[in-house]
């Protein structure tokens, strides 16, 4: 039986003020895929996922989530999103960890949206899974960057999504926490068949965990397995053999 298509873009083109940022990007993502999304700065990686999440309107092309056109898609419970930075967090905002993680459940609810006692149990379980249960009543704005990252991951995971989109999640993490963070994401992919799209500059992470590599540079330069990338003569020509070797062997 073929796997469900979680995401499919066809000819996706996005431009800002007339400048093309993505050009005819066609990418199918199947359930259970773990995709490492890489590319140089300004390659359109973040724009790609912002378009997929409906935060940016494409100039042309189509996007389907779980078999439905993005414009008709409404089951946002199935999508978890961890944004690039925590810098948007207003240092004065008096929101507790529990309150913020609860926002991840609003996609499951119809109006008037309320957080029930059952929801509180889900929030607690998610906090326990991420080892931050003791922070539940702390103000998010007062936490360290690494703790905030885990709170935002809890917010993304509390609705038990089928697709998790992470935009450079490890920038605020020290090496030890980064390791356990990626182990956790890997566990979600393996144990719960959660589809993962991870933007990162860290190709060693992709080599170790991801089953596919998507290299964007305003267009799709490569989409396939990491092994295929490393043995591809086309990629050797595109990057030069030395750079291809460096990308492929960073993970040691």
């Amino acid at each position, binding site marked *: 039986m073929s796997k469900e298509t979680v995401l499919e873009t066809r000819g996706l083109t996005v431009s800002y003020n007339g400048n093309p940022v993505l050009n005819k990007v066609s990418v199918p993502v199947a359930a259970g895929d773990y995709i490492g999304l890489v590319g140089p700065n300004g390659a359109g990686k973040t724009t790609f996922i912002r378009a997929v*999440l*409906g*935060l940016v309107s494409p100039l042309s092309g189509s996007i389907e989530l779980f078999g439905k056109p993005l414009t008709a898609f*409404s089951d*946002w419970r199935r*999508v978890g*999103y961890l*944004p690039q930075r925590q810098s*948007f*967090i*207003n240092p*004065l*905002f*008096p*929101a*507790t960890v529990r*309150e*913020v993680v*609860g*926002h*991840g459940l*609003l*996609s499951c609810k119809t*109006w*008037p*949206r*309320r*957080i029930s006692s059952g929801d509180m149990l889900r929030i607690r379980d998610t906090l326990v899974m991420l080892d931050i249960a003791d922070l539940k*009543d702390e*103000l998010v704005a007062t936490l360290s960057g690494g703790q905030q990252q885990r709170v935002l991951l809890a*917010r993304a995971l509390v609705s038990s999504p089928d697709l998790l989109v992470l935009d450079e999640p490890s920038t605020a993490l020290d090496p030890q926490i980064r390791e356990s963070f990626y182990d956790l994401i890997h566990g979600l992919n393996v144990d719960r068949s959660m589809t993962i799209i991870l933007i990162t500059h860290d190709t060693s992470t992709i080599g170790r965990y991801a089953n596919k590599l998507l290299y964007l540079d305003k267009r799709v330069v490569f989409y396939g397995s990491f092994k295929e990338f490393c043995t591809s003569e086309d990629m050797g020509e595109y990057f030069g053999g030395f750079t291809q070797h460096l990308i492929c062997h960073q993970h040691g």
Partner: protein
Amino acid sequence: MDIVSFLQFTFIQRALVAGIFIAVLCAILGMFLVLRRMSLIGDGLAHVTFGAIALGLFFGMYPFAVAVPLVVAGSYLILKISEKAKVYGDAAIGIVSAVGIAGGILLASLSGGFNVDLFSYLFGNILAISSTEVALSIVLSITVLGAIYLFYQEIFAAAFDEEFARVSGLRTSRINTLLVSLTAVSVVLSVRVVGIMLISALLILPAVTALQHARSLARALLAAAGYAVLSVLLGIALSFYADLPTGATIVMANAAFFGTALLYKRFAGS
């Protein structure tokens, strides 16, 4: 005269009832505006209120009946200018605010100069509030607070992280429209309490005072409402006994709470 004997006056009773409802309303809305860094929208809409009231007086219509729809339209215009015309939010507030004031001045000039009515709206006079205005304040306050209660989670989520709220399927542009429309109604109601010149104080001061020590958003909202009510009570009582302008005294009471909260945080920790 004992300390609470002023409560026997009907005009004081009316002022207290209307003042408390409007203060709570402004404090709660103001919290969301401050957290979204939209504090000055109150000032901008107050200036639109000036133009709208001048328009009402010019055509001999009940000023609030003209002001409510016009100021709601002004709030919508601020949102649309900042969304569609690639103008920053504060600049959009500045544009609408200036047009409101300019319109008011033109109408006042055309009508033969400022008259006493328009002047009283600039500085407010809660002690002269009528029974109809008290009833209007109560009904509109309850309506606005009810809307905030029903959309609390949406407004909270969009204020904390608008992008994530959108990815959760919340229609944040509608939430923003709701928030500024509610603010517009509240600003018009507040004109009687503190006047056009001081409205933003009712929105900003209780919220920033509560934020000095808040441990959750729900507690911050309760604290802001508490400070706002205490300021109205203190302001009306002080202005009555010391023969001071009531609106300005209410604002100074709010400012005193803010100063005390700052000092407490500085010296006692919080």
